[in-house]
Structure formats: C-alpha cells, structure tokens
C-alpha cells in the first residue's frame, strides 16, 4: 500500500496532526484556524495536540463564521503567512464558497502570479454513518472542477502525512479533503486499511502523482479516498475468480495524474472508476474521458460505480444501498465481461 518502512502505524487524523506540528515547529508562518481546532483537537481529530504545543495564537478556535475566517486565511496567506484553515464538513461550503473560489483560487491569477496564496483548506468528506444529506457529501468534483486550487484526497495515513506536508509547503492554495471513515475515529467506523505505517520524520508525497496500490493485468480500478479500499476488497474478490485487477489511487485530483491512469488502462484494457461523489459531471466522468479521448481501443466500454444523483438519504437502508462498495465493483466487472 505504501513504501514506508518501519512499523509505527498512525491513523489519518494523527498523521495530519503530526505533519502540521512538524511544519509549525520549523516555520513560524504556519498557523491553524477553524471551528473547534483548539483544545478539542478538531471534531475529526486532525488537530489533536496542536493547541497544547503551540497555544491559542497559532491554533485558533474561530467563531462559526466560515466566510470571515476563510476570507481571513486568504488575507493572511497573501501577507506572508501559511494558514491551515478547516471547513469542518465540506457540505458547509455553501456559506463560504466565495472566499474559497472567488478569492483563494483566483487572487494569484488576478495578480499575474505576483500574489501567492499559500494556504491549506482542510475539510472532511463522506458518509456512510447516517449523518444525512448536509453532512455526508464528498463534492470532489465540485472542488476539482474550479481552477486555481490544488485538491488532494488521501486514502491512508502515509499519504495523508506526506500530502499534508506538501500542501503546507506549497505556494498555492491546496484543498485537503479527508474522508471521515478513514480518520481513525472509532465512532465513525474506521476503515482499517487507512491506518498504516507512517514514518516519524517529515516527508512529502508529491501533489499530482497517483499511486498504483495494487498491480494487475485484467482490469484497472481507479478511485480515491475511501473508494480505494472498496477497490482493494473488490480486487481480492476478483482474484478468487481468477482475475487480476490493478488499483490506482489518484491521491490528487488537481493536478490530475492522467498519465498513470492511461498507462494502467493501456496495460489492462478495462477501466472501472469508483467514486463516492455524485455520478454525473464529476470525477468518474473526467477519468473516463481522460482515457478515451487519448485511446479508445479498450477491451470494453469503461464503467463507473458512483453515488447516484440524489441527495444523500438518512435511513441506513437507503444510504448503504446508494454507496459504492466492493460488491458493486465486482458486479460492474461481471457486467463488463457479459457485454463484451
């Protein structure tokens, strides 16, 4: 799953906090603000320990005023600081998208590259625990669609730490989207595969590089975040049927590593994209287009397993029915074989 040596395992939440602490120790311009990021340590644990070490000047609890404090992060970043700001749930983007998209993402362009906006907007994504339709979305496609901000989505703690370090050091705004089910918060039903060996020393994972997390020759599964784990489970199931699936973890949506995806599909000839974000106009369509506009000689029409185009329902029966999972991926592959 990663190239880390050593055996210390971290959750994504711990990995994010460790990367942040390490950067804060060596760069006084790095600071954190958001709702409940202080003594509480973040609702999803990703700022735990920071307030204790750095105090309330550099780890700032904010009023519930996303427009003001994300706007303030833009102003501070333009003035030489490196803010890490948290939008607690990505679903809350509605109250602050102007600060994010009309300022954070555009000020560098409007200044002809003379104004840098080196900030990290970290935000939680994903459902599966019946939190209803305003606390369960992924919105990967929404953010990746809008130019001017990098977007990363880790699937495991090793990548989370390296991507967080890279994001903090980046001179561009980076949206760091972490999936709640991968955070290692017990009450969110943690995905075990996300808690992996993570080196203590600081390191970066390059933003814009996908990772082939499982080699295979019959099928390419492309996903991100929690979807990677569904793909790995599906790949193991397909292996028992004698099929060898390759799994590509995108890790970054912007920049998007189309080359790694294309190289994999060129090898396998089959593509299924798995995305917990909405089906239409999103990541799955973009990945498929990136492949077929480059090479249409596939063994089968590409397929996608994505969230249906519906608001996320509350009832567990309905929500679980709608979410991507390994069974759906396996079924999509069987359908692919039947069609061709």
């Amino acid at each position: 799953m990663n190239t880390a040596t050593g055996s210390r395992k971290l959750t994504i939440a711990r990995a994010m906090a460790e990367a942040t602490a390490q950067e804060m120790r060596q760069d006084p311009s790095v600071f954190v603000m958001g709702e409940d990021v202080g003594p509480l340590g973040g609702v999803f644990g990703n700022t735990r320990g920071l307030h204790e070490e750095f105090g309330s000047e550099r780890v700032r609890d904010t009023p519930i005023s996303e427009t003001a404090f994300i706007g303030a992060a833009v102003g501070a970043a333009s003035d030489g600081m490196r803010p890490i700001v948290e939008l607690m749930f990505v679903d809350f983007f509605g109250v602050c998208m102007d600060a994010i998209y009309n300022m954070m993402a555009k000020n560098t362009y409007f200044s002809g590259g003379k104004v840098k906006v080196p900030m990290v907007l970290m935000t939680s994504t994903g459902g599966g625990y019946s939190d209803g339709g305003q606390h369960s979305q992924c919105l990967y496609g929404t953010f990746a669609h809008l130019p001017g901000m990098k977007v990363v989505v880790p699937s495991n703690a090793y990548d989370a730490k390296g991507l967080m370090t890279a994001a903090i050091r980046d001179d561009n705004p980076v949206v760091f989207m972490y999936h709640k089910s991968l955070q290692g918060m017990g009450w969110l039903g943690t995905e075990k595969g996300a808690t992996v060996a993570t080196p203590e020393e600081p390191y970066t994972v390059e933003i814009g590089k996908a990772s082939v997390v499982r080699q295979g020759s019959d099928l390419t599964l492309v996903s991100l975040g929690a979807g990677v784990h569904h793909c790995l489970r599906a790949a193991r199931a397909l292996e028992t049927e004698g099929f060898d699936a390759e799994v590509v973890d995108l890790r970054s949506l912007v920049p998007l590593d189309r080359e790694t995806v294309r190289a994999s599909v060129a090898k396998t000839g089959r593509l299924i994209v798995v995305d917990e974000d909405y089906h239409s106009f999103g990541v799955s369509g973009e990945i498929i287009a990136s492949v077929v506009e480059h090479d249409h000689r596939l063994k089968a029409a590409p397929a996608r397993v994505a969230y249906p185009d519906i608001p996320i329902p509350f009832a567990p029966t309905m929500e679980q029915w709608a979410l991507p999972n390994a069974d759906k991926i396996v079924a999509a592959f069987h359908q692919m074989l039947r069609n061709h």
Partner: protein
Amino acid sequence: MQPTNDQRLWMYRQMVTSRYLEECIETIYMEGKTPVFNMAKGPIPGEMHLSNGQEPCAVGVCAHLDAEDVVIATHRPHHIAVAKGVDLNAMVAEIFGKAGGLSGGRGGHMHIFDADVNFSCSGIIGESLGPAAGAALSRKLQGKPGVAVAFLGEGAANQGAFHEALNLAAVWQLPVVFVIEDNAWGISVAKQASTAVPRNDLRASGYNMPGMHVADNDVEGVFAAAGEAIARARDGQGPTLIEIETSRLAGHFMGDSEDYRPKGEKAGLQSHDPIPRYRRMLLEDGVLDEAADSRLVDEAHERVEAAIRFARESDFLPAEAALETVFV
C-alpha cells in the same frame, strides 16, 4: 486631528489625479461603443465603475497609510488605488487589459493587485472584509508593523460577510479599519430601501467596536476619523467601523441610465462636488494660490496622460498567456 498643509495638498492632488483619471477613462471607454452601446467593444471593454465623487473617502484614509499597510478595496477601486500609491502606469494598462498591466490583463478594472503597496480589491460585494481581517491577523501574529483597511459600499453592510468579519475582528482585537463609502445607492436601490438602520456605523455597537460617522463627504472629516481609527489600530486597540456619507457622481457603471435617481439629485450632487469644494477651502486658507493650483492640476493631468499613453502603447500579451499564472 488636523491635517498639515502638506497633507492637505497631498489629499487634494490625489483627488485631482483620480478624478482626471476617471474623466479620461469615461471618454476612452466610449470609444467604439457608439452609436450602439456594446460593453465588449472599444479599448476598455467590460463593466466600468467610476469613482467620481468618492475621492474624499480614499484620500482621507490613505493619508494615514504607508506602502506597508494593507488596503483591500471594492469593485469601484480607482480612487483608492491612486491614493494608496498603486503604480499608475501599470494600473491603467491593466484597465486596458495590456501586457504592461499589473497582471498582464488577467484581472481587469475590478481586480487590481499591486503587491508592492499591499493593494488589492475584489469584485464581490462585502469580500474585502475577511481578507483585511486576515491581513491584520497576519501582522499581529508576525509582530510586523502595519494595519489593514477594508473599503466597502453601504450596500455591503447587508452582506453576511460584513457581520462575520466585524465580529471576528472584534473578538480577536485585530488592527483593521472598516471604511464604508455610503454613496446612498446599491446600483438602483436606495439605502433606506435596503438597510434597517439609518447609519451603518450604528451597527458597530453590535460588535463592541467604535463606530464613527463622517457627514457631507468632508475630506478633512474623513481624515480626522480615519486618523483616530488607524492610530487605535496601530496601538493595538482593535478595529473600528467608519461610515462616510459620500456621493456617486457617475452611474453605478458606465451605461447606467440612472433613471432611478430622483429628479434633480444628480445636479445637486454635482454642484456639491467635493473637489471644487476642497479647492476653495485650500485657496481661502492660503494653502494654495491660483498659480500653485494650476501647476498642481497640470502635473496631475500629465501623470494621468502619461499612464494612458503607456497603456495605449503597451501590447497585449499573446492570448495563450491566459494559461499562465493559475498556479505559481
């Protein structure tokens, strides 16, 4: 707080410069847009929001600021940019969309960024406040000198961003001043039709910060209020909200028929133009004589004309340069 004679002349000179710039832009803007008005035509395409009449707000505030201080302005930014010391040639070239412009033409008249003097603006109503609070936070965290000033129109005081940013700035005691240019109109909607309070500075009490009001577009009234507020910010005493009664002598944008104005309003505003008023005051006070005035005006005009020549003579960037500087 009284301005020195040098400060008075500085403010007058900036107002004259800004007004002449707007008058030149007004003329050039119409090139290619007659007989049929088409916003996309001519050497200056797009929307154009002129600042005629609002100059006292810009100069009375910026007289207290240095290059290191941060100013974030609005969609109507020219007077404030002039007063903040934005490179005039590069700004005018930006308004023309040329290579010599501040961003090479990627921003345009509503997106003027000059990092050398810490000036920027946003075309979205109410979005100067959060970033100004953040710049002020940055200075506080870095222990660096400098304050931040956000300009906004009176209509912006009805945006959520206004209320969030005032609260944030007050709870964190940030060195920031919020300056409302109350020109009485949000495009075509009068202030009293959109705003529940007669004066927005009254809203400051809701955020536990001082509110100040300047009546009658008074240059030295702005100077005094801003001086006090900025001194308080520099001294670590937190934010201030100022509302200035000003006047929009032009339309909301070029092409605005201004049919919504009551009959006679515009003529009344024009007869009360702050620049001739200030000129008369300076002449009466003996700060200026006719000869010095004429020299000052000529110099200001030459500076503007040189900037316009620079802009006209500048090339456009190759179109595909549009792809550059999305990221650094």
